[in-house]
């Protein structure tokens, strides 16, 4: 049976400085929720408040509808994997795993059972007699996760657990954590600043900025329908192109927009926009093509400044007629010369308009 987490108007203040500004959030039972955002956005603080390592300055934290604000960390039914792993250096792997259970006064035989089972799940059985300093980064990470598993918690918390691993190992551990979630079915909350991790692992992503929730939703929902310019820029790699633009005219069916030195007509409503309004026009690099295809409209001519061939993908860094930069991501390998001018095409359905405050129009 999985557990829900509910935050209601949660505040965090350090002295006079407020870092979390009244967050409302529900994590459904069994859900893999990822808190994502740039450094200093409050994601780790929020996680630590759920863990009980930071006191909550205001609002309520409910775990399975039970108020947890004043409950000590160990009594919340939570296990946490730290960014630095925080393995006890003076204990063997076995001791590291067993320590929490010993503290809880569990019988020796049961401790051994649980440790063996966790070691089997994580394939660290042969490491049980070693000290943390004798392990590689990936092995330490497994032990840290094992320490969480043996406690059979209601909720797993992960605080940027993969940021110390190399790229290859990170991908591997990402898959393993996702698999672990599928096998155990527990509620998991995962903090990262890496939007690829967020996109690939999450059932639900919570994008945070400066202590506010910018948007909550499924990964593709955030990708396809970002609520504002920040989310649009944060989710997706390479980053979305933002071009200064102006509304020429808008009605219930279409919007005429001046952008990139030309004009385009978007066959979509833009009711909240008015003629003459300055806006930002957003389009993802992968949503721009240099060939006319069904449903695409001509966008602008772009002069190629740099070509990056990634093998499966070609990135073009270009400049438009009005001097603004535009990044284009094309499938496959392309023979395009630097200095050449390419005609670009976009699908109106994948374009985003943002007002001066960054809200979606």
């Amino acid at each position, binding site marked *: 049976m999985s557990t829900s987490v509910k935050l209601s108007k949660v505040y965090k203040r350090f002295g006079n400085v407020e870092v979390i500004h009244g967050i409302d959030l529900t994590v459904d039972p069994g859900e893999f929720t990822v808190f994502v955002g740039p450094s200093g956005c409050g994601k780790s603080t929020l996680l630590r408040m759920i*863990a*009980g*390592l930071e006191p909550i300055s205001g609002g309520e934290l409910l775990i399975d509808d039970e108020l947890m604000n004043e409950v*000590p*960390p*160990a*009594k919340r039914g*939570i*296990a*946490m994997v*730290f*960014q*630095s*792993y*925080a*393995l*006890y*250096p*003076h204990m063997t792997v076995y001791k*590291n795993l067993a*320590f*929490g259970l010993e*503290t*809880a006064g569990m019988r020796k035989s049961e401790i051994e059972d649980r440790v063996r089972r966790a070691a089997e799940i994580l394939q660290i059985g042969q490491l049980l007699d070693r000290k*943390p*300093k004798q392990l590689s*980064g990936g092995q*330490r990470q497994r032990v840290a996760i094992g*320490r969480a598993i043996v*406690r059979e918690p209601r909720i797993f918390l992960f605080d940027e657990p993969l940021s*110390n691993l190399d790229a290859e190992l990170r991908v591997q551990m990402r898959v393993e954590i996702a698999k672990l979630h599928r096998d155990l079915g527990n509620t998991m909350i995962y903090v990262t600043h890496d939007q690829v991790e967020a996109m690939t692992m999450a059932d639900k992503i919570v994008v945070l900025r400066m202590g506010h929730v910018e948007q909550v939703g499924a990964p593709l929902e955030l990708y396809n329908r970002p609520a504002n310019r920040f989310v649009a820029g944060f989710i997706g790699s390479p980053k979305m192109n933002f071009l200064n633009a102006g509304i020429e005219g808008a009605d219930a069916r279409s919007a005429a927009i001046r952008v990139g030195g030309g004009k385009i007509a978007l066959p979509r409503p833009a009711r909240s926009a008015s003629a003459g309004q300055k806006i930002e026009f957003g389009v993802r690099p992968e949503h721009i093509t240099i060939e006319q295809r069904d449903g695409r409209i001509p966008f602008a001519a772009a002069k190629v400044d740099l070509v990056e061939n990634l093998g499966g993908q070609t990135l073009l860094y270009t400049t438009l007629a009005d001097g603004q930069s535009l990044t284009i991501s094309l499938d496959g390998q392309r023979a395009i010369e630097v200095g050449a001018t390419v005609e670009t095409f976009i699908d109106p359905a994948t374009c985003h308009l943002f007002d001066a405050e960054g809200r979606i129009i």
Partner: protein
Amino acid sequence: MTDIAAFDETQQRGLTKRKLWMSVLLHGLLIGGSFIMLYPLLWMLSASFRPEEEIFSSTSLIPSSISFDAYPRGWFGLQESFGTFFWNSFVISILCVIGNLMACSLAAYAFARLNFWGRNFWFAIMLGTLMLPYHVTLVPQYVLFLNLGWVGTFLPLVVPKYLAVDAFFIFLMVQFFRGIPRELTEAAMMDGCSAWRIYWKVMLPLSLPVLATAAIFTFIWTWDDFFGPLIYLTDMRDYTVQLGLRSFVDSTGLSDWSGLFAMSILSLVPVFFFFLFFQRLLIEGIATTGLKR
């Protein structure tokens, strides 16, 4: 070509020669310095073996004849045997070491990791006591212990150590504890540990180097302490080694100097071995590699 090679070789040889001379000079200086520093000790060692009349008349380190008589004479030369003094010194020093390690580490843990009202204020006050000379607090302390009826016992020398009175060690340990990653404490909290269990199971095992430092210095300072025992111990049966050594110097002028030097040499032995045993821990340090940075 050959000329150049020969020139290079000559230069190389010159360089090696110069290096060799520098090395000899340096070693000579260092050995000379060490000898000057060790001279009093060597003189004392030699005096403990030489005939009594030769002690103050000869400057040579080599005695004219060697005799071990001074050792048994010194050991049993006083009203109480030196075995008693050694035992007393040993008991006091070990109790002080245990007390200091326990009390100072607990106080340091509180300052380093626990949140309590006025923590910084009390820390500053504690550091302030570092500047108080022993002699300033001596009289009030003596009066206090006298009223408690403790004068003439080991208690005034031992009990304060269980109340974390050595601010220096507390400071040392606070600095060390602060260096232990906070995540370890937090991980232990998540594992359900109380503050006490975190101290006992996580902080102390990781603090062996600083504990060893405190143990070594407490032992040496207590073992070598003359003033404290002199003031508080009155009965010869309670005397420490240092007080025993003083008893050799007789006010009538009939002092047994070689006996004194023999016992002085013996009094160094425990300190030497204590240091030898614990310095391994000092150097070993602890690899806090459970954390990847």
